[in-house]
Structures are given as C-alpha cells and as structure tokens.
C-alpha cells in the first residue's frame, strides 16, 4: 500500500512539472509574448524595455524557467494582470466558494445517485428502472448551463422560491471566518445568515450535481446488475441468508467499487462544471475567476495558477479514491 502511494505521489509530481513546463513555454511563445499581454497595444518602446527587464525576460530562457519553477515552488505565482493583487490572494479568496458548491453537489449526487441506481437495478425492466434510464440519459445530454438558466427562470423569476444569484443576500452577510458562508454562520451563531447562504446554495448545487448524479445512477445500476449475476450471491441466497444481509454485505459492498471510482472522476470534473454553473449564478468562486481571466484580455498569471491547481486537485482526489479502496475492499489491503 505504501509503495502504491509513493509511486502515485511521484506520478503526481511528474505530471505537475510537465504541465507547468508546457504552460511556461506556451506563454513564452504567444505572438507578442506575455509583455504585450501585460501592456496592451499602446505601449511605448521604453515602457516595453523597462517591463522586459523588470520581468527578467532579457535573461536566457533556462534562467527564466528556473526562476519560474522556484517561484511556483515557494508559492509565489505572480500578480494578477487585471487587479494587480498577488495571484495566491485572489485564488484563496475564491477557493472556499467553489469548495462549498462542489461539496454540496457531491452530497446531492452521491446521496441520491447510489440509492436511485440501486433501486433501478432491483426493479430491472419495470417502470422505475425505465424512467431512471430515460431521465439520466437526458441528464448527460443536456448542456448544464442551459439547465441552470431553466431552473433559475422557473424557480426564481415567477415563483420566487429561490434567490437568483450570488452566495448570500446583501445585508444578511455574516462574519467571515472560513469563507464557507454556511459554516461561518454556524460558527458565529448567526443562524439566519447560515440559512440564507444555504438557500442560495440550492439551485447552483442542483445544477452542478446533474451530470455526476446521472453518471453515478447509471454506474451504480450497471454495477449492481453485474453483482446480482454473480455466483456468490446465489450461494448466499441458497444457504439461507436473509435478504437484507445479502443486500448489505454482498451486493452493495461489491457493487460500490466502480461507483467510488466514478465519484472520484466526477469530483474532478466538477471543477469544469463549476466554470459554467458559477457563471449562470454569479457565484464568485474559482469558476468565475477562470471566466474573468479569459474574457477580453487574458489574465495569464491567474489562468496558469488555476490550471495547475485544477490538475493538482484532480490528481489528489483520484489518489484519495485509490486509498479508499483499501477501506472498502479487504483484498486490496492484503497486497
């Protein structure tokens, strides 16, 4: 187990370094280069010259690369072109918003997806099963930004059930402790603010959860059907185990492995979904940051940091999923 973790950690490092190198050389080779991106078109030769010297672009490329790597490793990701703030500050401000949204989405997707997939498999070929198949197929075929606008249009404009955008009502703002608004309200005992933040969270979380939910339902259903066909289920049945025991110990436990894998993959994919969802609901997290840093003139330092962060999160989540196998499946632990 330790060897597996070590090998994966090394892989993680190698992948991140490769990605970093790719981005570095790509940005250097943009037409006009990053200097033009920083200055815009109306720069005098003198300001250009000064900036080139200040950024160290007059140095040989390998010196620049080494400096870049050293900065990234020490956590200095440069300053945002748009706002001039350090990139790390910009990102850490947006980070809790996206984590809050993604966690809510995962809770919805897993909490509804596994039971639904299981039920569909148990009722194979009947109405519930067929309905589930049709709905999940539409779920993976619908552009989620469109679904977001639909929900927003139906539930906030006419009926006023949910707030249309943002993370919290103006005026209901609570004390900022962690940046997770729902949690902050609980910590400071501002229950109203917490409820308000939770209320804001519902529609974006449902929108973001749609694709993972549909995929988890489908995988769970397929996986349970596979397991139900296995000889050991027939054996368990034949030796007179109670139905509930068979379901819990034999069916679910074995069927969950591919589901856990899928949950890992989908958690990573949530980062991409968040870009769309956050734009629809004006959420102000990392997704919004990506949209902002690519609209109009590109904010390369922010963009570059976000790409590295996304890859890092994606790989770490996958590593955690691998480790969770050891908990679910004793056979992995023996190895």
């Amino acid at each position, binding site marked *: 187990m330790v060897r597996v973790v070590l090998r*994966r950690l090394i*892989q993680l490092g*190698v*992948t*991140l370094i*490769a*990605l970093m190198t*790719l*981005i570095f050389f*790509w*940005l250097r080779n*943009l*037409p*006009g280069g990053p200097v033009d991106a920083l200055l815009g078109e109306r720069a005098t030769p003198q300001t250009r010259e000064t900036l080139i010297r200040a950024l160290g672009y007059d140095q040989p490329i390998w010196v620049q690369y080494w400096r870049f790597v050293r900065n990234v490793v020490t956590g200095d990701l440069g300053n945002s072109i748009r706002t001039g703030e350090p990139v790390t500050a910009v990102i850490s401000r947006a980070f809790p918003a996206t984590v809050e949204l993604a966690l809510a989405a995962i809770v919805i997707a897993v909490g509804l997806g596994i039971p639904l997939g299981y039920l569909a498999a148990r009722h194979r070929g009947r109405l519930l099963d067929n309905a589930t198949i049709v709905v999940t*197929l*539409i779920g*993976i*075929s*619908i*552009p989620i*930004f*469109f679904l977001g*606008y639909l929900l927003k*249009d139906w539930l906030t*404009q006419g009926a006023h059930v949910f707030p249309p955008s943002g993370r919290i009502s103006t005026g209901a703002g609570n004390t900022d402790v962690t940046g997770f608004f729902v949690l902050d309200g609980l910590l400071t005992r501002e229950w109203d603010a917490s409820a308000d933040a939770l209320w804001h969270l519902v529609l974006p979380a449902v929108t973001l959860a749609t694709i993972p939910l549909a995929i988890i339902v489908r995988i769970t259903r397929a996986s349970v059907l596979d397991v139900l066909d296995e000889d050991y289920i027939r054996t368990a049945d034949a030796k007179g185990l109670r139905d509930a025991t068979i379901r819990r110990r034999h069916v679910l436990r074995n069927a969950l*492995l*591919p589901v856990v*894998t899928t949950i*890992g*993959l989908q958690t*990573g*994919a949530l*980062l*991409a*979904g968040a*870009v*769309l969802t956050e*734009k*629809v609901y004006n959420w102000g997290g990392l997704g919004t940051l*990506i*949209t902002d*840093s*690519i*609209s109009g003139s*590109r904010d390369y330092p922010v*963009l570059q940091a976000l*790409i590295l962060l*996304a*890859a890092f999160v*994606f*790989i770490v989540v*996958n*590593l955690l*999923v*691998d480790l969770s*196998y050891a908990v679910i*499946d004793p*056979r*992995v632990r023996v*190895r």
Partner: protein
Amino acid sequence: MTRPGGIATLAEHKRRRIDELTARTSGTGGVSLLRDAGRRLRRNPAAVVGAALILLFLVIAIFAPLVAPHDPVQRFPELTSRLTVDSIPGATAGHPLGSDPLGRDFASRMIYGARQTLFVGVLATLIGLLSGVLLGAVAGAAGGWVDVLIMRITDVMLALPSLLLAITLVALASESTQWTVIVAVAVVNVPVFARLLRGSMLAQRESDHVLAARALGVRGRDIVTRHMLPNSLTAVIVQATLTFAVAILDAAALSFLGLGDPDINRAEWGLMLGVDGVRYLEVRPELAYFPAAAIILVALGFTLLGESMREALDPKNRR
C-alpha cells in the same frame, strides 16, 4: 498492475475502461461477431431510436437549403422593424418560428444549424480520432521509449477534466475562430483514442493472426496497416460515436463562456443557445428552447447508438 478480483487503482481504472472496450470489441471473432452484433443492434430499440435521430438530423443537414424557408444570414426588414429592447417577434406569415435578435429567420437558422453543428461535431471527433489513432498506433507498434513518451503525454492531458482542458487550449490560443473551438474539442479526445488504439495493438501483437502474418514474412508496416489496424476499427468507431455527443456539448459550453466562434452570421446550435439563447431567455425563451432541444436530441441519438453498439459487441452478451 492489475490486482486479483478485478480491483484496480483509479488511474488504472480509467485506462482499463478504454482497454476493456478494446479487448471486447477488437479481433475477437471476425465477421461472425460483427454480423451477430449487427443483428442484436437492429433488435435493440435504443439503437434504432438513436440511429433514427442521427439520420433525421443528417437529412436535415444535407438538405438544409431545400428545407429552410429562407437564407439563414439575411436580415428581414419586416422583422427588424419590429425588434425592440424587450421584444423579439414570434411566428408570423413566412417566418414560422419568428425572428432572432438580429431580425433573421429563426426557423432557417435552426435548420442550417444542423449543418454547422454536425460539421463541428464530426470534424472535432475526426481530428481527435485520427491524431489519437496515429499516436496510439505508433506507441503500440514501436514500443520502448516512444511508447513511454507518448503514454506520459496522454497522462498529462488526462490530468485535467476534459472541458477544462478545452477551455485552457482556447484561452491560450492567440485568437478565437471556429477552428480554435474545433481543434480544442478535438485535442481533448486525442489521449482517449491514443490509449484505445495502443491497448488494441498490444493485445494483438501476440495474437495468432499477427504471428501468422509475421511467419509468412509480411513486412512490419504491412502487418500494422493491413492486419492490426482493421481489427481495432470497431472499438474506435464505438468510441467516436460516444465522443461526438460530448464534442457538441463542449462546443456549446465554450460558446457560452464567450470562447466560441466570433462570427455572428454562423448558425450553430451551441452558439445560438450559448450566446443569444441565454441572453434573451426572459424576452423570448424559444431562442434557447429550440437549439437546446436540438442539441439534447442529437447528443441523445449518438449516446444511445454508441452504447448500444458497445453492448452489442460485448461477447458477454453473445448468444
């Protein structure tokens, strides 16, 4: 790497999903398997519905000039004159679906949209498929450090969620055109096809038909092109069908993020939905509903057909 009982780590699982598909669909039974699969496919209602949907949109795309009442880029004075800030005219005589925000015939744009959308989807899938197949074939046939290098490159590309990779590629391109979108969506699929093909090549390298060809003195290049590639084809076709659905959804998402095709005359469903559709949702929701419905139906068609094909080719389901 594979553990007993079919347990694998996640990254392996991702790879194995591709490899499994390969093993199931390539070179296991020759023509009889294909014929058998074809028969099961025709009996599967999901496959028939999927194929019918694809065919329907294909016909609309091909005969768009005959079906569409008007030119999709022409602005009609009778429509533009009625455009205001908060109203876009609906159905009138000669314009069955009314106007778009620029006074163009919306029905014609929807019909020509089939053309552009399928064009983007097909090209993105094809470019991804061809580059992936080429890379995978080289990796599988060459082995050694070439193989390791190509596989590590695909690892890096798989380190980002697919839509995020596409966003990154468009954002890093200096200017956005229709081709930037197509290439970005295509590149995302290169590692998938590369892995698929490499797995299939590795599986075949030791198989009897390749050994036989080698024993007969067939040149290495001919073994790859004549004996190995054709056997990998079914797996590639299945994957391409599934890829297509994701490709048009990704293209629509890019349009919505402002990274799409900047040509305002282009009638493409993703653009129509992602730009005008969501902007005028409260004014005239049909501008979003129609392209969205079309995208959902096309994506659904390709997903249904792709999954049925995979199921039909699975030897487990053979009778």
